[in-house]
């Protein structure tokens, strides 16, 4: 892993931008993750210091929310919706297909570091279930063939 301290100037500039606004911790964490891809450990003491919090409080917030990562993600992030509406249209079969093709549990990254898999509970696409989100884009009315094509595109891209 590259030296995380290289991220410190960026972290500190983001802290400088946000620290005057009330309740700034979530916006700060979102910005760091958007720019760096995850929340590096080295950022935690800096955030705590800037917001006058303990490191435990900052870590507590990072671990509470499903969105925040503390390690770099794979090249592609795939989130399959597993909520009721999508389940009623075959989301579990798609989940099985993903487990099979990627040799993964529902959470985790494929061995080649190409795809990170995560469940999500509702993308607001319920009128055209089932749905998934791949690298921030929602795909709906999914079929097994459609999912295969999306995975193939990810692999070719690698």
């Amino acid at each position, binding site marked *: 892993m590259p030296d995380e301290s290289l991220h410190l100037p960026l972290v500190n500039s983001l802290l400088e931008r946000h620290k005057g606004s009330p*309740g700034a911790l979530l916006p700060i964490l979102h910005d760091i993750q958007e720019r760096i891809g995850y929340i590096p450990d080295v950022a935690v003491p800096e955030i705590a210091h800037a917001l006058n919090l303990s490191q435990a409080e900052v870590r507590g*917030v990072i671990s509470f*929310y499903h969105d925040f990562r503390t390690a770099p993600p794979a090249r592609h992030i795939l989130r399959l919706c597993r909520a009721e509406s999508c389940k009623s*249209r075959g989301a579990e079969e798609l989940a099985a297909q993903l487990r099979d093709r990627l040799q993964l549990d529902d959470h985790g990254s494929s061995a080649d570091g190409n795809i990170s898999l995560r469940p999500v*509970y509702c993308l*607001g696409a*319920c009128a055209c279930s089932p749905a998934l989100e791949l690298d921030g884009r929602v795909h709906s009315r999914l079929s097994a063939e459609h999912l295969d094509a999306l995975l193939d595109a990810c692999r070719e891209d690698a």
Partner: protein
Amino acid sequence: MPTLYLPCDSLARAVGADEVSTALITQAKERNLPLELQRTSSRGLYWLEPLLEVDSPQGRIGFGPLTADDVPSVLDALKGDPSAHPLALGLVEELPYLKSQQRLLFARAGITRPLSLDDYRAHGGFEGLTRAVAIGGEETATAVFDSGLRGRGGAAFPAGIKWRTVRATQAAQKYIVCNADEGDSGTFADRMLMEGDPFLLIEGMAIAGITVGATFGYIYVRSEYPDAVATLRAALNIAREAGYLGANVGGSGLAFDMEVRVGAGAYICGEETALLDSLEGKRGIVRAKPPIPALQGLFGQPTLVHNVLTLASVPLILAKGAQFYRDYGMGRSLGTMPFQLAGNIRHGGLVERAFGLTLRELVEDYGGGTASGRPLKAAQVGGPLGTWVPPSQFDTPLDYEAFAGIGAMVGHGGVVVADDTLDMAQMARFAMQFCAEESCGKCTPCRIGSTRGVEVIDRMLAAPEQSDRDAQVIILKDLCDTMQYGSLCALGGMAPFPVTSALKYFPADFGLQPSEAEQ
């Protein structure tokens, strides 16, 4: 070449609207056609998306659901007889699905461009704010109270009481908080409104701000809705430039401004007090009430917390009057509700109607039954914490009290339909599993009970003997009882609803005889 309209809504895009748009632009260029294409909001007739609309002398005609491959033939058809195209739908506003609706909140859906102030104003935008400024805070609060508007997030608390409570407080700072953490599966009305008509929400919040004396507001949007976040942020800048936000809101002499905050994937942050903690930069932990947020909310200050649809209903109430709004609905459920048809449904989409239509009308007349064509098994109404309602109860009118009467809830208006292949025991297990994953951990019934719930259901499903299963049913029912009455908030308190309703109406899925499940 007439003007063409294509939605930029995220779900329309998820089923290919951008590809259709690209094809239209490319094809028009190849054919040397002058193309005017407007990206509007969605009508919410999602089974027809991507739905292309074209101006005609009689009104807009529609084509859908389109793919990019259909674009050449549609352009050909526009030169001749459009109705001859196999995907031609005729006049969109004459489609029975849309024509029979009572669109108040979603009056502009599919018609206007989300970020066009001109479009918004041309269709009644800011009339409510103008009226509120003219009549002052006291009368505005009275109009909201008299309209009978109840909180659309699910709890259905009378909005006017909250407004009067916050207005009556004395504080250095008050806040308006919009709960846009629409996490319930099967719901998408908030998303549609934020992506499609952001100025309506901004107008509603500005009215709320100047009425209760709050000078700042937050819209807390879930991170799963990036398009809504981007649209709202752009709309805020436009509204601010035009003087609808800032030091002198709509010429009132009063200040109000707001910002968008993004959640981080925690379902519990849709609970209002957890949402407030999250806005304060903390873990989204539910607070014990009292104190109520109206008195001590965000940063300990008086805070008016409402769902997107509640705040967005206010401009109309002001513009048309409380009586106009009250004339829709039944009993104590007044106004209209945007119901959302989802799951295994042929015609999934948004149906805004006055309260009082039956679930059967919604699922069968609008929804057209299951998408799979298989027999209907049940519908879960009101999100993942809602009851599974069997078809025998589909004649219940959609009204807060009538639904409470059958042990169900209207909630945020989401309806997830299932056919006979969906295993209700697995759905009951999922309800407990979801609660375990999303519990904030503050109270024991929810934190521990949900995990035990998964285990009990697993044991029941694995038990070879009928007597073992019966023993587990007793434990499960006890557990549900403890969670329902002992939890601090609705997550633990209502997670048992899908479990007990599945057990009651579909005992065979659990390997039980009907009589045992009802004991």
